[in-house]
């Protein structure tokens, strides 16, 4: 009967599934890895991965909320990383972060304008820009990579942007928490959030109520681009190294994180904490495969299998909750 009582809760909170899956996986990983997975150092690594993938997923979740999709974020991430490292070397990390954000915003604006002005599905537009900006990133780094030696990465600015740890966790994690809090408030308690979800729920109805649908979508694409580029800057700040392939395939992980986290691809219903939990689950799986010594060749295969099983489990759970 306790199970029956849980049904309305699951129906209302589509992100509960991923939290349940996350809890189950944590138990499995912790008990089957002889302490190699569940230790503070490894958790710290997972959280750093979660932070960069999570920032990207938050942006993608917002775009999904408007009923569109942005799969160019992997390349935006790479461009952000390159912009950050290049300028951090030459000028200053703070300037470099702003430059990365500007690059992200510009890519988001480009995507958003193409989608809203042409009315072409965002899937194909951002698939195109995914390739365009990956191409530019590879061309920019042809034959060499950007790097800043560890010894040169001193000072609070490097520390602040992924280059240091605060309370044992990479500073990227705190940026993620900050972004989550701000975006949750924007989404739930501000007029823009109301309009964003309305656009995803029914663009026609939102339009008839005077919502400027294209503007809402445009702003959302810009936010998404900025978050992805910022995530790239934080990753580059941690590694001190970036090449043209940074962020490759991350766009797929970000979308998987959103969908696992209870975001409806049709738009209008998203969960930001759910998307982050999705990012955490994906990062945990990767980390588990590393610490248990699974050969890298099997990586994608196993990751994909777990994603499919998790998605199936989540769907089964929701359908069970919908039944009487």
């Amino acid at each position: 009967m306790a199970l029956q009582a849980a049904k309305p809760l699951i129906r209302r909170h589509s992100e509960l599934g991923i939290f349940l899956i996350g809890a189950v996986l944590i138990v499995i990983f912790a008990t089957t890895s002889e302490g190699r997975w569940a230790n503070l150092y490894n958790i710290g690594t997972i959280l750093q991965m979660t932070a960069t993938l999570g920032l990207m997923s938050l942006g993608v979740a917002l775009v999904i909320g408007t009923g569109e999709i942005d799969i160019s974020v992997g390349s935006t991430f790479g461009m952000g990383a390159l912009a950050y490292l290049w300028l951090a070397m030459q000028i200053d990390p703070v300037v470099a972060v702003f430059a990365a954000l500007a690059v992200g915003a510009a890519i988001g604006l480009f995507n958003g304008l193409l989608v809203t002005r042409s009315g072409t599905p965002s899937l194909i537009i951002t698939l195109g820009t995914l390739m365009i900006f990956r191409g530019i990133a590879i061309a920019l780094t042809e034959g060499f990579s950007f790097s800043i030696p560890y010894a040169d990465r001193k000072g609070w600015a490097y520390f602040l942007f992924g280059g240091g740890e605060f309370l044992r966790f990479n500073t990227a994690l705190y940026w993620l928490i900050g972004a989550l809090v701000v975006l949750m408030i924007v989404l739930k308690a501000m007029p823009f959030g109301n309009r964003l979800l309305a656009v995803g729920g029914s663009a026609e109805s939102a339009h008839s109520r005077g919502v400027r649908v294209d503007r809402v979508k445009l702003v959302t694409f810009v936010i998404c681009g900025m978050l992805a580029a910022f995530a790239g800057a934080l990753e580059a700040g941690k590694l001190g190294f970036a090449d043209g392939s940074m962020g490759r395939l991350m766009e797929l992980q970000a979308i998987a994180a959103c969908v696992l986290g209870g975001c409806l691809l049709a738009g209008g219903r998203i969960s930001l904490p759910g998307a982050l939990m999705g990012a955490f689950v994906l990062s945990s799986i990767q980390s588990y495969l590393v610490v248990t010594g699974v050969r890298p060749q099997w990586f994608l295969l196993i990751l994909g299998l777990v994603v499919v099983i998790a998605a199936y489990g989540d769907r089964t759970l929701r359908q069970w909750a919908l039944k009487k």
Partner: protein
Amino acid sequence: MTNNQPLIQVRNLDLYFGAFHALKNVSVDFHAGELVGLVGDNGAGKTTLIRVLCGIHTPTSGEVFFDGRKIVKFHPKLAIDQGIETIQQSVGLCDNLSIARNFYLGREPVKRFLGVPFLDFSRMRDMSTKVIRQFGLRDNVSADDEVERLSGGERQSVKIGRAVEFKNRVVIMDEPTNHLSVREREHVNELAVQLKEQGLLVIYITHDIFQVHKLADRIVIMENGEKVADAMTDSMSAEELEEVIRQGGRVIEKQEAV
């Protein structure tokens, strides 16, 4: 009742959807304090015409004047800001949002904190609760419930309640009594007359000439994208107007029985 300057004046309006000629040279005036019935069969262009008036469609050619000023840009936001409230037939509510959020969509009341606008939840909830009670929604429906949960009649009630609550200068009702019970229907018709008596322009769209003939001051009939008749209700009976619709818009000389 009719003052000299029309509140809304439509002149030689044409609208194409691609190659489809949806509105053909439509000219019509609407005055403040008037209840106009806009009648016609399915596909006659009634809804298309009012979708121009409420800013959803931009006409291909022709002019629309509001309060004497020519409208240059068509957008629902501009129409709503001018005081034109529309109860649309198929759109207007987002299923994924609560009643309170739908109620204020596009003009959310805010409380500013350090200049940042935050939704004023208590105002949104109070106002929409008041309206859903007035319109007799089930007691277990709250303003925080998603619209998805509502029945067809309840959705219609929310839309009508919203338009009446924000009433300003013009209320356009597109088939407002669809999905409604007999009692709700009477309530809506009374509201339409009340709004008119308060000096608003009410445009009431329906198939049912007999229903609207009782309420309206004037009837405009559309057929096939054209305006085919425009008559005061005291000069033509509902039967005569029905005949006009039946004849596809031609006023037929009735043959005398010999």
